[in-house]
């Protein structure tokens, strides 16, 4: 009676084991795996593609492996031997505290461990990443440019069991002539430039350009005049960055216009700078402005001086100067950080007229709070053209406004498409996705 029970139990167990093995069976490998250079890139990526095996239901994802070169295998083997020897040496050395030949013992243990580690052999591959079950491609990046690298792909199930490998072959990443990811950005940039140049040409052809008034810039004349009346200087700060910053370039350009007005009004202009290159550029600009105003005799290069690159050292100097000299007008045009409020509050305390302009949005609230006039972002970039008043400059300003209008139209179109897409319409959704993920992400 017992024998059938035992047999039944054994058979049941065997079935369970077989069942378990069945559920843990490796999934089938992917098919048609191939590796090729990722087109239109900077030569640092290889794309690996494959197809899902037919009748495969238990695939949780795919794992991509890079085959190691002989050199890499040798290096990896050496590292493993060294690490094993190191551990063995330390263990043997520490456990044989009383032995007189503990160093020899430790060395022998290390040699043996290194040999064991070497005998295990080395895997000839390294995992580079995984792809989801529905993603039948993987981009291996960054890889060395121009060297053929081989890949293989294995599928795996939810328990982590891997299929046999599907060899994808080898491919070398090559540098292409153009970055495909920026394909949309290029025509957008060309379009933007074309609009601005077109508007400049229109203005040059004599078409009248009307620009909106900017109160802060209209106030410059009055502010410089006030300095002359009071017999006090105009303080001009062109930001705290170097000439490679576009805001500094704009700040120095505006300085030329302000210096010309100051020369005409016979007001003294002081320009402390936080960068040496800005000092040289500012001197050239102010000298030219005085020359153009017919006042080259009044130009004094010593009023344009370098202070320090150190942000707060610079602030300390300018604030001290403000308190001592009490300039009638303070103009801040350029890139500013924490010094924005430190400077403008000091200017406020000495009752100076203050005009600020910056594209550093985080500092705008401080300038707005402490200054009489603030040029916000694009107004600041429009300032030099606005003050120049020449057709070419005004044309570029008009181009800036036209580009802004186009940007607004694109935003409204995007919002409409996205809203319609959200309501379940497939075409607008596809269009808004394309706009967001391909055109604007380029």
């Amino acid at each position, binding site marked *: 009676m017992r024998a059938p029970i035992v047999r039944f139990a054994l058979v049941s167990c065997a079935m369970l084991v077989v069942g378990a093995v069945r559920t843990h069976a490796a999934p089938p490998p992917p098919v048609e795996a191939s590796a090729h250079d990722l087109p239109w890139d900077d030569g*640092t990526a290889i794309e690996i593609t494959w197809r899902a095996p037919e009748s495969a239901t238990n695939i949780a994802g795919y794992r991509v492996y890079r085959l190691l070169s002989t050199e890499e295998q040798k290096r990896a083997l050496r590292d493993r031997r060294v690490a094993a020897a190191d551990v063995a040496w330390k263990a043997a050395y520490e456990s044989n505290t009383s032995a007189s030949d503990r160093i020899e013992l430790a060395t022998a243990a290390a040699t043996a461990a290194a040999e064991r580690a070497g005998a295990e052999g080395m895997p000839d591959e390294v995992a580079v990443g995984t792809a989801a079950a529905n993603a039948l491609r993987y981009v291996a990046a960054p890889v060395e440019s121009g060297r053929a690298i081989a890949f293989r792909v294995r599928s795996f199930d939810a328990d982590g069991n891997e299929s046999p490998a599907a060899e994808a072959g080898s491919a070398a990443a090559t540098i292409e002539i153009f970055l495909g990811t920026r394909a949309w950005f290029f025509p957008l940039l060309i379009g933007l430039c074309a609009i601005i140049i077109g508007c400049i040409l229109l203005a040059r052809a004599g078409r009248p350009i009307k620009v909106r008034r900017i109160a802060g810039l209209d106030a410059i004349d009055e502010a410089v005049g006030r300095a002359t009346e009071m017999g006090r200087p105009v303080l001009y700060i062109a930001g705290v960055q170097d000439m490679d910053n576009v805001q500094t370039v704009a700040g120095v350009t505006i300085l030329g216009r302000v210096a010309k007005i100051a020369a005409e009004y016979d007001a003294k202009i002081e320009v402390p700078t936080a960068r040496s290159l800005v000092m040289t550029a500012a001197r050239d600009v102010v000298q030219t402005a005085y020359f153009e105003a017919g006042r080259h005799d009044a130009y004094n290069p010593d009023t344009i001086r370098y202070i320090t690159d150190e942000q707060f050292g610079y602030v300390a100097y300018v604030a001290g100067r403000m308190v001592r000299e009490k300039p009638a007008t303070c103009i801040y045009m350029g*890139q500013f950080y924490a010094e924005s409020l430190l400077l403008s509050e000091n200017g406020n305390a000495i009752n100076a007229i203050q005009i600020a302009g910056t594209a550093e949005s985080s*500092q705008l609230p401080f300038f707005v709070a402490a200054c009489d006039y603030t040029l916000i972002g694009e107004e600041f970039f429009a300032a030099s053209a606005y003050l120049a008043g020449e057709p070419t400059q005004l044309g570029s300003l008009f181009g800036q406004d036209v580009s802004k209008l186009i940007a607004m139209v694109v935003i409204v179109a995007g919002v409409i498409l996205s809203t319609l897409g959200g309501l379940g319409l497939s075409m607008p959704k596809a269009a808004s996705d394309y706009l967001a993920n391909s055109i604007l992400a380029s």
Partner: protein
Amino acid sequence: MLKFLEQLDRRVAFLLMGLAVAIPILFPLPLSYKPSPLAQSAFDAIDRLPDGSKVVFSFDYDPASSGELQPMSNALVYHCARKRHKLYFMALWAPGKTICTETIATVLLKYRPDAAYGEDYVELGYQSGNEGVIKIAATDLRQQYKTDIKGTPLEAIPMMEGVNNLQAMDLLITISAGYPGSKEWVQYFSTPFPRTRMITGTTGVQSVSLYPYIPNQIAGMLGAIKGAAEYETIVNEQYPVNGKPVPELGEGQRRMGPQLVAHMLMVSLILLGNAIFFMQRKARREGRR
């Protein structure tokens, strides 16, 4: 009364602000914090990486802003130390290098004394060139950094093996006080190379300008001392030492006391300013009648 308020010297505001900050420093307030989603996602970005992942840490600030930023640097380095990540330290600001060395000594080596230089962490130091450093290091690290701060060639540093550029990193952490900083990292690194995730710690003023980059370019952000306090709360909960909060990770929470009183003072000053404004307007109207 109105005349007195109108002529109120701004130094009175200065004095009140001084007291509002000094008193809570001397007598700490018992406050508690709930981590914001941004701090939580910064924590997750570090925590979900497998132990021993490659993390590049950029110290882009100077002593002036270390009052606001050092607590979060400590918390982030501590968290990475407990996760045993491999840390690559660099700085876009010259003073950042010194701050970085101090942080390694006071936090990393204290809580991970077994960390070996060159294997678990390396100091690449400061390089001039602002965003140029990011651009070059993103594609060719060895062109930008020939040696580490000790003068050792990168080829001789074990953990630099296979690291040819910053794209080889699993995570970028930048602690930033301005230019060059988080915004430049977004522009020149996390946008063109999205594989490496980025988290940032930043000053309060700057944090507002970084919101547009969340979550696509920036995975998590710690904004000012509040962000640090929140991060300290999470890390102290998840990775305490002997069941107790880490002593180095309390500074952010402690500094929230002065911040609370200072903010309340600001609110009061604004209210007072408006009271004066309305009283003036009323007096003017009555004068006109």
